[in-house]
């Protein structure tokens, strides 16, 4: 059984000292960047760090975190943020008000967790306040267990990290609405969670998959997945997209013409160019191609498209077509999304520039610029004066 090193188990008398010594860095308080030496036009809170580590470096606040964050999860309404660095460190930023996770220090400050350098992947689901991670090929879990995401047959919650006991070697973990998707180092995909609408790819719509089980079509060579915020799951294999679960708006692409639930991972897009599937919600999904183009499928009226179009692409002739005129440079897209919400703030990175948008009524713009703003258009927030107005940009960091 694995252990996590450098995590205090007794009373902590000198928190800052401990983490400075063990973790190799002090915390970065959200919205403290100005006092850290940046100029007025660089008033960036932790959210920008969260959304894109490259932006962090561009704004000269990388001094306090010596390694880039290569993946960031969290956000939503629980003030839980997790990040891993390129050298396998785990960092977290959890507010004291978060009740489900009992990590060493919860003070809404960026802190390193322990001293290990083998954290490979992380995922967070706001719905059940669940964190999962891949550490040196093993799965780890922390949070509420009743969503069946831990995938070892147990529903026990754990406020601290526990290792999931299985013998497989994992490479990626994704969390979404009442489900988890885990990918092995050799590209097999395993699901756990509720079997709603075949979303766990087990051939069943009944009960739940309590113990992590391979998809019924035994896919191999899977490289990415999005568990989404509702009853759909998307997988990437050979640059193509496979879909299981709900298909109300042809969210996986044009090849599945029926809007009925899809029973098991089925080829839905066959362009062979997809690297990442992302932003999967009740309404739509995105994919980033190997040339940096952004593909989109679903309903466009919620302003999730960073090209500001509200056009839908939910037919067999246009689902998962490229958007933004085929522009390249996209490296990131995500949405803050929950099944109970109809307004999904969204974030995209295009040519290294942070773009903020989403939401029917300019929801995200209000959060960034204040209640008086009512823009329904996306804004370019990276290295622009728009960011100066951000009072608490962390509120727009997105979860699953």
């Amino acid at each position, binding site marked *: 059984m694995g252990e996590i090193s450098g995590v205090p188990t007794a009373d902590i008398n000198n928190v800052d000292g401990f983490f400075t010594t063990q973790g190799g860095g002090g915390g970065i308080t959200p919205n403290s960047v100005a006092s850290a030496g940046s100029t007025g036009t660089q008033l960036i809170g932790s959210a920008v760090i969260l959304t894109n580590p490259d932006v962090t470096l561009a704004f000269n606040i990388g001094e306090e975190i010596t390694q880039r964050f290569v993946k960031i999860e969290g956000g939503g309404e629980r003030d839980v943020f997790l990040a891993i660095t390129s050298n396998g460190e785990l960092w977290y930023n959890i507010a004291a008000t978060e009740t489900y996770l009992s990590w060493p220090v919860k003070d809404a400050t960026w802190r390193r967790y322990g001293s290990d350098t083998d954290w490979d992947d992380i995922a967070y689901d706001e719905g059940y306040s669940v964190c999962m991670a891949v550490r040196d090929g093993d799965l780890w879990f922390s949070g509420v267990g009743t969503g069946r995401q831990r995938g070892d047959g147990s*529903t026990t919650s754990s406020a601290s990290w526990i290792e999931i006991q299985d*013998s497989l070697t994992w490479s990626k973990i994704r969390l979404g609405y009442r489900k988890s998707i885990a990918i092995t180092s050799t590209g097999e995909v395993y699901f756990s969670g509720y079997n709603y609408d075949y979303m766990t790819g087990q051939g*069943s719509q*009944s*009960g*739940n*998959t*309590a113990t992590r089980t391979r998809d019924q079509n035994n896919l191999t060579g899977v490289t990415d997945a999005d568990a989404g915020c509702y009853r759909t799951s998307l997988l990437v294999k050979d640059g193509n997209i496979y879909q299981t679960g709900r298909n109300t708006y042809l969210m996986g692409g044009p090849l599945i013409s029926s809007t009925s639930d899809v029973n098991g991972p089925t080829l839905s897009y066959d362009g062979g160019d997809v690297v990442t599937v992302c932003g999967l919600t009740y309404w739509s999904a995105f994919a980033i191609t190997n040339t940096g183009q952004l593909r989109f499928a679903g309903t466009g009226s919620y302003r999730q498209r960073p090209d500001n179009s509200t056009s839908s692409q939910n037919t067999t002739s246009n689902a998962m077509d490229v958007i933004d005129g085929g522009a390249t440079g996209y490296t990131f897209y995500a949405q803050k999304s929950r099944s109970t919400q109809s307004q999904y703030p969204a974030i995209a990175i295009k040519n290294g520039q942070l773009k903020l948008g989403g939401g029917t009524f300019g929801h995200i713009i209000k959060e960034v610029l204040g209640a008086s703003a009512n823009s329904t258009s996306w804004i370019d927030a990276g290295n622009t004066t728009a960011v100066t107005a951000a009072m608490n940009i962390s509120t727009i960091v997105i979860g699953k």
Partner: protein
Amino acid sequence: MNDYNTYRVEVSSDTDFLEGWKDDAVPNMEFMYDQESLEECEQIDGVYYATYRTWIVHKEHNIEVAGKNGIDYITIPVGEYGLLNN
């Protein structure tokens, strides 16, 4: 061809809606009520009723489960699974 049947059963304030029940033939699964609290259940003359779905397997089904000691290969025969014994 349906792959489930829906059943209606009596429940009470003692019912744990978040815990499922097992069927030995499909050890990787749990079966659950469709409702998650007593308040969501139908009430008739003071008696509460919940519903649940079984799983009907029409063709023998092989699954691979991530077990503690390796992959567990399980064959699920044709049948209906998850029936409560009441």
